[in-house]
């Protein structure tokens, strides 16, 4: 482990922390433009966070220590997840500790904690949100795992670094399996980040909300951390998508010269991805909650199909 690698890791840690709210702001801004509104600007999520940090926290009478600890655990998990994905350089010292399966595990850990916290106060909406979140999660998690498995079997490794290095530096080969995986991944991304059509991030309509129902009881710094963690989760998912399906331009280990270009490429990919997400959200409507299992089941089946395609068509040995 070299000092440059550690420095790379530190740079990425700070970068994702700042980039996450900006990405969220960018998506909201794009949506506003697409809907012919002016919008509050890219910085609005940051302003929200600062406002929330300044406020006094209000805790329900029967909130347990679990409820208070969850925002920190959540934030910590999501920060780790976002910091792990090699997007700028393939030389991250933290990466060997967490491979793709463990990454999915970290997402699951965060999901379980936020669901438990939602049930902690004992309100009707809290447990409703927890139940729906776990419903989405139990199909999204294996779907994501299958997508990552497809990439893993192509690159013969579950380490994120090796996957990205393989996919970025191979001759451009079209993998049919990765096409299935990409569609499945997109569906999982939408569901896991509480986006339309599965959930509406800007809703407070009681009967349809999932993510918002779980965090209703949070306020001030706790809410800020939960929101920041959600932004980090979205960033992590977007970067995983970039790493798997568009990894070109990433800096080799220790190659400082390539870093500015990598940074530029990453930002343009994120901007494009965010705009695409906003477009998708504008064009589609939220679906009924009863249809969510169908949607997630489709994602899961597509992901399995991708893996199957790889096993059948692309293995030559």
């Amino acid at each position, binding site marked *: 482990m070299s000092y440059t690698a550690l420095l790379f890791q530190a740079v990425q840690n700070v970068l994702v922390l700042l980039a996450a709210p900006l990405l969220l702001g960018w998506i909201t801004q794009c949506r506003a433009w697409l809907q012919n509104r002016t919008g509050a600007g890219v910085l609005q999520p940051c302003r929200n966070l600062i406002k929330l940090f300044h406020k006094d926290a209000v805790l329900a009478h029967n909130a347990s220590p679990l409820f208070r600890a969850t925002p920190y655990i959540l934030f910590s998990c999501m920060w780790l997840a976002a910091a792990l994905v090699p997007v700028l350089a393939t030389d991250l010292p933290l990466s060997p500790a967490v491979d793709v399966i463990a990454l999915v595990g970290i997402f699951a*850990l965060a999901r379980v904690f936020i669901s438990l916290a939602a049930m902690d106060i004992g309100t009707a909406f809290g447990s409703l949100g927890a139940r729906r979140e776990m419903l989405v999660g139990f199909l999204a998690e294996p779907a994501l795992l299958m997508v990552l498995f497809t990439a893993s079997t192509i690159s013969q490794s579950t380490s994120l670094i090796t996957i990205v290095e393989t996919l970025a530096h191979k001759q451009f080969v079209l993998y049919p399996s990765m096409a299935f995986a990409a569609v499945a991944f997109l569906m999982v991304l939408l569901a896991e980040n509480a986006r339309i059509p599965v959930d509406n991030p800007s809703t407070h309509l009681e009967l349809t909300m999932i993510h918002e129902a779980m965090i209703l009881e949070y306020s001030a710094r706790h809410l800020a951390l939960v929101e920041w963690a959600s932004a980090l989760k979205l960033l992590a998912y977007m970067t995983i998508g970039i790493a798997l399906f568009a990894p070109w331009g990433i800096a080799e280990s220790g190659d400082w010269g390539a870093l500015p270009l990598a940074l530029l490429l990453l930002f343009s990919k994120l901007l494009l991805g965010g705009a695409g997400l906003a477009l998708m959200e504008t064009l589609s409507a939220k679906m009924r909650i009863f249809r969510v299992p169908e949607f997630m089941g489709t994602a899961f089946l597509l992901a399995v199909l991708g893996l199957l395609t790889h096993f059948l068509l692309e293995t030559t040995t």
Partner: protein
Amino acid sequence: MFDQFGLLPIDVALGVVVAWLVLGIAGLLLQNTRIITQFIFPAGALCSLVLAAAGLAGLSETSVAILPLGLPDLPFHLRMDALSSFFLLLLGGASVGISLFSAGYFRSMADDALALLSLEYHVFMAAMALVFMADDAYMFMVAWESMALSSYLLVTTDHEQGEVRRAGFLYLLIAHVGAIAILMGFGVMQGGQGDYTFDSMRHTHLSTFWATVTFLLALFGFGAKAGVLPLHAWLPEAHPAAPSPVSAMMSGIMLKTAVYGILRVSFDLLDTQLWWWGVLALTLGLLTALFGVIFAAVQSDMKRLLAYSSIENIGIILVGIGLTLIFHAFHKDALAALALTATLYHALNHAFMKSLLFLGTGSVLHATGERQLGKLGGLIHKMPKLALLMLVGTLAIAGLPPLNGFVSEWLLLQAFLLSPGLPQPYLNMLVPLAAAALALAAALAGYVMVKFYGVIFLGQPRDEKIIEVHDIGIWERIGMLCMVVACIALGVFPTFIILQLDLVTEMLVHHALGGSALQHGWLMLTPIQAERASYGPLILLCIIVIGGLATSLVVKKFYHGRLRRGPAWDCGFPAQTARMQDTAEGFGQPIRQIFEWFMGVVRQMPTPFDLHPHFHSETHDLLWNIFYAPIKRVNEMVGSQVGKLQHGRIHVYLLYSFVTLLALLAFIQ
């Protein structure tokens, strides 16, 4: 370890068995609850610790013993090789916590009842130890039956209740159907030589057909003990009926005797393995895992929920065994070693985490007298210590990093990922499907455990009597703490555990992960090569804990730590009551809806004119109708036909004897 005393590991293990029997009998003679709880159970726990040490020592040195007991010319053979030692380690390690917990749990039981229970309990543990050590079929069956009978008596501790008696009978029945299959399996394996020692079975070469028959008999017989589909029916009945430490012992340890049996027969006693055995085990395991977890999600009795979760975990273990068989049959030794390591690791994990959860439900049951999830809730405020201990168990069994359940699932998924290149095209298709099903089962386990923990410990109490409960006592706390420490240690230090498991895989599949697991130091788990896969649970744990603490400090330093308490917001809805929370049925409703075709759901809908509308829905096990009901019908039919032969008149029976004699004479001619 025991060399300096001139003792072999097997001597120590036998000593522990004798000590347990003595403790059990002493408890029976003393008939005093105080002495039994304060002395006998802790002493039993100490013996367990010694057994665990013996198991650890026995991993690296095989020792044998012959007991001059039993029938003349047929002494009991005992042997402690790596496989036996591993399971003895599991038995010893997990029973320490259970015995300590029992010391507190049974403190208010009547003298005579507890004296009997303590005898059965210690005989049960001794019988399990002997099952793991037996080296001939005779000894094995004696120990196996003692285990089944003592556990049957333990299950029916509360025999005044009709449902407990029914559950006990079902358990006894299925256990014995399984035992017959195992006995027949041994009969085939001795190959007509009449020598029932395992050593001669190892050297008998069976034809493919007879080897297959043996394997199927073993899978059936041991599967009945483990709760493999469709022989799972006794688990969700017997586990809730038994006292909680007994449920913990049965689910955590006794189910593993079946795993031991399957491993012993298929890898040690049989000398050939066919790849399709593996496919069979893999498929059965997946079905069992999915079945168990889906049914666990719709349960509303906390111990039944855990029983179904045990079925799921047994399924996962069977998947591991199946994968090992497939790899071993194709001579992919490194992969077989990886799959077997995952299997053994999961067995060890499950012993600790499931026992922990069952003990916790025992404490909840003691404190509230309630097993129905629908009447619990909010216990984290009344029983904070229990809630913290149970949180670890819940996260562990949900398969979340950095705890132990994740490690074994990680290893198993790695084994799946490395399997391309099997020479069978159909297998290559099966493997990704199996991996997907396994991932689905693992994710559903998270759903189940959120329901389990959330409904019991979080929210508001759903029943008034919960308001006056007290937290667990010191013995319970120590017992559960042992389990929690084991769960965390197994999760954070996998490389040390795998080094020990290597000795078992070396014995069974002649290959071990060995050096490759350790090539990057003990921090990183790298089962094959570092480039292929690595996992550093300690680093992960440290980052999450330090990250969380640092965030908390920074936020409070830069801004403030001001906090107010107020009523819950709940979208401004003022009149909320505890009944508005999700019940267990409510939380499981989506699963019931999605998998309705998989289970029999009976709903009672109120009519629109009903003044006291009442909705009732019940979930049934369809397999009961498909599999058990026909057998029961045939059995009853045959029974009634046979019954016609019996008249109760002596001359008719004499006639039967005469006819039989004639027939036999004709046969001999």
